[in-house]
């Protein structure tokens, strides 16, 4: 004990250290280190800007985000709406993105297909969750801080959130039909699904509430927001989709007669990267893509579309997906009256398997919308030079054919291209139309046909055809000196003419004969129905709508169209060796294809007590 007696101070200090250490046991030591770092808490957002920001987040899920899937969540629904229909092939090469092969072949029960279906399910419900968060937070702030919001703004926020909730459920409904519907106060996320009809009623209920709450023009003048007219238009769409033509007629006519929308003056103004043309009169609602907005990976610049560009021989570089089908390209041929050949020569319009190459020798008259919808050989591709499938613009000709998607591609002169991100050349700020006025008019025409107002339907279809006849693809220019030289070599007049859009009879056009005729009158309801449906395909091709259109026209119609597309329609079949031989492996379209299967992961995750509360769709 010598050291203790000799150095009491030392021992004392040591023991004091121990004691002090023990006193550390006070609460603060642990609680001071408990707070999460680099995050916001619920309290920080419980105010006006928090509510508005939460609502912004709910808009963002209109396209894939950095937190959700890859291409199954695309705003355009290109996989489920275009590739699954007769508009396009998966394209690219045989093995890239195999899930899309299975969607294209109607093998929707495979593990590959399941992964894409999961993405669509996930993005739809993420949209619902975000819309519901905004509604909950709004309620909380309005209750706790009554001064934060004016009544108008509170109603506006609520209206937009309800509208978004309706939209996201509609997206899930048109895919899967029997889905669960989630409102802001729910906590059981393993709910059973509702029947398809009940879901429609729920969607319409939310839309009606939104219509009551929303102002007639977008809040703050911000074009991306839903207004009362957006909600009304959307209601009409839902009514048409659910077969309520009488109801739709009322709603859509109201929008047509009293709403703020009009057709663009020319077709090339509809899908465009030019900022001045964005959100024009035809836009009812669009995903507001933005490029070079400070986001470092180009995630807001149409991430969902980035695969759908011509391949590495072109300016874009990759990946050659969503290639227009031979069937679609043939569909743009017109007869001597400038009316669709598919109507006047139903047995032969699709007979040609040949690459539909543009050029002075090609005098087959076509609808000018063809060359705004599909890239094809011999025709300038917007203002990027002469399209050349053999020159590397197509990834694997044997697999995907010679055509490329075009609507979603930016114009060089628009400056809409992203400067950042993987393959930045395939990212742009071209808004993705979620609903445009031509679409609405054609839905109205359908309702008019079904309610026997054939004159009304003729007028609508002719107005759309008149607009289609305004401009055609012009020379444009090459993406660089070499492509410009190739363009001029093919078409010398292009040396001095760089207009991208020209009148359809412009002398500079040497690659096609364009013609769009007017229907004199629809003679009977059946002809009118087919003419409207034909017009709908011509106008909205490659916009992700075709498959859902075919399906809502009934099992018989959809099966005839899809099985005909593969096995012989208009004198040509896709599964032939001259076209896409691999289509021979496609499953026949039958009743079960009327709904996509609910993702197996979600069915499994809905299990409580051994019971799967989400019932799988019939046949899957």
């Amino acid at each position: 004990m010598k050291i203790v007696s000799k150095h009491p101070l030392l021992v004392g200090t040591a023991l004091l250290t121990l004691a002090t250490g023990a006193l550390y046991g006070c609460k603060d030591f642990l609680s001071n280190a408990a707070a999460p770092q680099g995050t916001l808490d619920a309290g920080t957002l419980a105010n006006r800007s928090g509510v508005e920001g939460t609502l912004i987040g709910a808009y963002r899920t209109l396209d894939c985000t950095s937190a959700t899937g890859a291409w199954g969540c695309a705003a355009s629904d290109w996989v489920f709406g275009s590739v699954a229909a007769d508009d396009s092939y998966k394209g690219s090469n045989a093995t890239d993105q195999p899930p899309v092969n299975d969607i294209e072949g109607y093998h929707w029960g495979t593990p590959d297909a399941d992964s894409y279906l999961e993405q669509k399910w996930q993005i739809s419900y993420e949209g619902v969750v975000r819309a519901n968060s905004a509604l909950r937070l709004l309620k909380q702030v309005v209750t706790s801080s009554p001064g934060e919001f004016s009544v108008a703004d509170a109603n506006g926020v609520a209206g937009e959130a309800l509208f978004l909730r309706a939209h996201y459920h509609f997206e899930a409904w048109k895919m899967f039909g029997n889905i669960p519907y989630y409102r802001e106060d729910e906590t059981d996320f393993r709910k059973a699904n509702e029947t398809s009809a009940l879901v429609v009623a729920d969607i319409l209920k939310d839309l009606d509430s939104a219509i009551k709450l929303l102002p007639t023009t977008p809040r703050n003048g911000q074009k991306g927001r839903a207004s009362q007219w957006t909600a009304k238009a959307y209601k009409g769409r839902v009514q048409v989709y659910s077969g309520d033509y009488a109801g739709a007629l009322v709603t859509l006519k109201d929008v047509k007669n009293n709403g703020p929308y009009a057709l663009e003056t020319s077709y090339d103004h509809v899908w465009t990267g030019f900022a001045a043309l964005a959100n024009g009169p035809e836009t009812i609602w669009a995903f507001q893509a933005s490029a070079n907005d400070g986001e470092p990976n180009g995630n807001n610049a149409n991430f969902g579309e980035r695969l759908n560009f011509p391949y590495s021989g072109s300016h874009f570089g990759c990946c050659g997906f969503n290639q227009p089908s031979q069937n679609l390209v043939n569909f743009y041929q017109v007869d001597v009256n400038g009316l669709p050949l598919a109507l006047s020569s139903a047995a032969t319009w699709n007979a040609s398997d040949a690459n539909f190459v543009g050029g002075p020798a090609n005098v087959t008259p076509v609808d000018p919308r063809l060359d705004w919808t599909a890239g094809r050989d011999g025709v300038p591709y917007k203002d990027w030079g002469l399209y050349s499938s053999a020159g590397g613009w197509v990834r694997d000709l044997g697999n995907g054919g010679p055509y490329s998607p075009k609507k979603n591609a930016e114009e060089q002169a628009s400056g809409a291209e992203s400067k950042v991100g993987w393959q930045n050349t395939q990212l742009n700020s071209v808004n993705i139309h979620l609903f445009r006025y031509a679409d609405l008019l054609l839905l109205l025409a359908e309702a008019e046909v079904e309610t026997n107002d054939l004159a009304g339907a003729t007028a609508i279809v002719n107005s759309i055809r008149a607009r289609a006849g305004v401009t055609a693809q012009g020379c444009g220019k090459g993406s660089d000196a070499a492509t410009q030289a190739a363009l001029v070599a093919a078409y010398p007049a292009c040396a001095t003419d760089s207009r991208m859009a020209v009148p359809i009879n412009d002398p500079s056009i040497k690659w096609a004969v364009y013609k769009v005729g007017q229907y004199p009158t629809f003679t009977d309801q059946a002809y009118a129905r087919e003419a409207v449906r034909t017009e709908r395909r011509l106008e909205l091709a490659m916009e992700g709508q075709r498959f859902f259109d075919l399906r809502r026209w009934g099992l018989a119609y959809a099966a005839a169209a899809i099985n005909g597309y593969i096995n012989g329609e208009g004198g040509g079949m896709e599964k032939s060796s001259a076209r896409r031989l691999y289509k021979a492996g496609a499953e026949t379209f039958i009743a079960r294809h009327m709904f996509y299967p609910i993702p197996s992961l979600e069915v499994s995750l809905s299990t409580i007590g051994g019971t799967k509360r989400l019932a799988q769709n019939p046949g899957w």
Partner: protein
Amino acid sequence: MEKVLGTHSFLNGGSRWLLAAGASLLFTLVFSGRALSQDIAVSGTVTSTVGAPISGVTVRVQGTDTRAVTNASGKYFLRAPADAVLTFSYVGQRQVQTTIAGRNTVDATMAQIPYLEEVVVTAYTEQRRGDITGAVSSVNVAAAERQTGASVLKALDATVPGITVTGSGSPGSRSTVRIRGISSFQNNDPLYIIDGTPVQDSYINFLNPNDITSIQVLKDASAASIYGSRASNGVILIETNRKGVAGPPRTTLRVRTGVASPVRGYDDFLIENSADYFQVVKQSYLNAGQAVPTAVYGDLNNPTVPNYIFAASGAATSVDPYGRPITVDATKYSFPNSLIMPGSTGTNWWKAVFSPAGVGDYNADVAGGSDDNAYRVSFNYFNQTGTAIYNDYRRGSVRVNTQFNRSKLTFGENMALSVDRSYGGIPNDPGGYAEDNIIGKSVLMQPVIPVFDINGNFAGGKCCGLGNQFNPVHVAFAAKDNLTKNNRAFGNGFVGLEITPSLTFKTNAGFTVYQNSFNGFNTAFPENAEATFTYGINESDFQSTDWNVSNTLRYIKTLNRNSFDFLVGQEAGANNNRSISASMSNLLSTDLNSRYIQDALGDASTKNVFSSGGKSALLSVFGKADYNFADKYVASATVRRDGSSRLAPGHQWGTFPAYGLGWRLTNEPFLSNNRILTDVMLRYGWGVTGNQLIPPGRIVSVFGGDRGDTFYDISGTNAIVPGYRQSLQGNPDLKWEENKSSNVGADMVLLNGMFNVVVDVYKRATNNLLFAPQAPATAGVAAPPIVNIGKMRNTGIDFSIGHQAAAWNVTFNGSHYKNEIVSINGVQNFFYGPISTRYGNQVINEVGHPIGAFYGYIADGYFKDAADVAAHATQDGAAPGRLKFRDVNGDGKITLDDRTIIGSPHPKFTGGLDLGAHRGNFDVSATVFGTFGNKIFNVQDEFYVFRNFETNVRKDLLANSWTPQNLNAKYPRLDKNDLYSHALSSFYVEDGSYIRLRNVQVGYNVRSAMSRWLPDDSRVYVQAENMFTHTNYSGLDPALPAANVFGAAGDIRDQYMGVDRGSYPTNKVFSFGFTTSF
């Protein structure tokens, strides 16, 4: 424009400085310590009780600084006063004292300390084995030293039963250590205690293996629960040499240099010849009824390798009928847009990337001291060049350990600085596809593609069906200046006070200050099929500070035949970290000196900055009581209370009790002097340990936003405004995860020490498992809350059997465990693994099965013919020659519901064999490791069998594919349209068992007679590692590293074991080593 330049200079600035400083200090110490003497010469031989010479015995002249060490023949030589006393001491042997008494020859016989008398370092104290009731394994540090590598952990799996270690051949790669299976869905790393200080980081590369003197592994709760929190995955106690060697400075040099090469290459089993490759392509088109492409090989019946596979537009001056350039105009070449690439008759892509590479490990230390003090200073420089091109790892470290004894006071410190630098390689096997690194899909490039184009720039598949793989040499070249730096200062100071002979107080303060930084370069790939043209950089910096203080009071008392040992203590520690990362694209110059993130150096609008941080704290009190009666009955009890900042208020504190019982059977009268059972102790232990190692701050729900996820251009003007969403759901009830374990064991010394046997049988049940299982998408993408509800169970057995003879020794150890998920969250019974590959997710965690089980269809061979297709359940794409999947649920169709568990990555048995022998001045040692019954999911089949993305394929693919004549072929029918057989199934699952000769070392102890220049205590050796592997695995290397996967709940790599996505293979290493002391 990029050209291939020379490799790096041998040393960079920092390491050169370190080496220079080390060398000069060394010489100062060496030349200051010599003393003259007029004494008599004494020499002798030290042998064991069985007559074997013992080398390394320290022979000291008592009361002086004079000292010698025996050589391999057990001989020593020194000068000493004729009447002096000599002490012989050596680890593991009882000390011997002899007076010289005027003799010139003084021999000694040393007896081994019996196994149960060995003193080992355990939690907070040192204990005699005979007093330990838990499962504690000591690592054979000497065997561990026979592995070449930056981390000591790599060597543990063959040498300690119950431990598995995975790691890749990438220099400096992280090793993943698991003790007794997997007890949690996340964070299964053991707790490392280095010189009494807990270390959070399991990347142990910062510790120089040569500084380590002992490693103890606390495997069960009764041994580990005094560490309470964090101990549920076991504890590894590492002691660095702080005792020094009493006497004048003694210098030891240890040098090893060698050459490493991969154990296997893709060129061993992938096609190397372009013409052979074309035959595969041709057959797959023909079988699909499609036209065979002619753009590369021309006439399909007379294929030829083209002069050029790609020529920029206008560069071809003549072409053949297939459009292939015969001659080109090289003046049309320009980089990056107009490239011209020759065709290759067969590029060996593996050899283009991998080649033998050097490794060097240089150590110097100086140790010395007296009764009052001891010191050891060590220096290390380790440099391993990767077998992959442009891959290099270097580490320098300095350690200073001191201890001072002043009367009743003991104090000292252990302090180390470690700096490492690495370039390239795959130090952390990534999550995600893992395709685009230097192995993955990249080395599956088609052989017709050359490495370089006609101008010496990198070539690629920029043509007609050559695939969009990355040129792996380009990938490596682009990363050659990507520098990862780790700087770390760590250590501890300690003070001990002997208040009375029975009562001691000890305090220990430890710290780690750590900095990690990375500078990366993203290059353009203009030669790719999907060409890219932009250059970018990214960099990050991470700083972390840890501190830990513990105070313990120990009281030891012996009363007659009862002895008591009490310990009480208190501990506190905290971590703070912060990181910042930034990136920028579209660099104006790619010059190394311009790679900074500044507005003018690239596109300023692409600048992106991100910072984050974390905080956590732990507070603990603990106590331990040991009781021993007559060396026959041993009992111990432990209790610890831990408070964690990561858990919810009200649940922050957890209590972790444990107890153990031991019975020294052979000390009973009825077994005393038993001829077979020399010394036997039976042990039983039970205890509870905890786990709280989840990311901090998960108690409350948090919100956030991201420009690419929640921000939106609401006004349609190409300008985004902020948006928010819930980013994760908190759980205000977060509690401790608890692991209850029980262990029954026996330590046996048989036949008078001829055999040593240790056997342990255990059961570990984890309760309140902390994890965030996937929630339904209807709940949103916000990270689901971490909940405490799952249960997991491990049962197993570990054993080791050792035999010691005069001239040789052998130890065999083995272990078996069975892991089972007992429940997940009370609602769902499964969740998928964290990674999807191209064809989906092949891992499921399901109740009733082990963690990380493989999942998919059962492949039942191939469809024979159309009748077979018709007879089978309806299957998408069914056709003769395609894989047939089993209708598991018998509903007549193959659907997603037919997927099932198709294998487990967990071994049924792992074992190690350690052999040693010596004769004369030679010694030989070897280690063999084997793992049995584990399966590997070979994802690389997606490419080299199913040819996704037009990759290269296996050499035997054409010959062994299904044909009507070869119904039981190894591979399905070659068919371009077969997009069905590739579905994830048991076809991909292979036996991953292997036996590997880890190392063989032959050493020679230099005798002074043979060399005038070398000190007596010198040894040279040659060593060969991983020279021989026996396995049926068809891929590169069955020894797969764990993928570096993190999820919302932290490190979840154990949910992704045994999946081969293209990892850096283990190395064969031939080396030469030299050790000397003077």
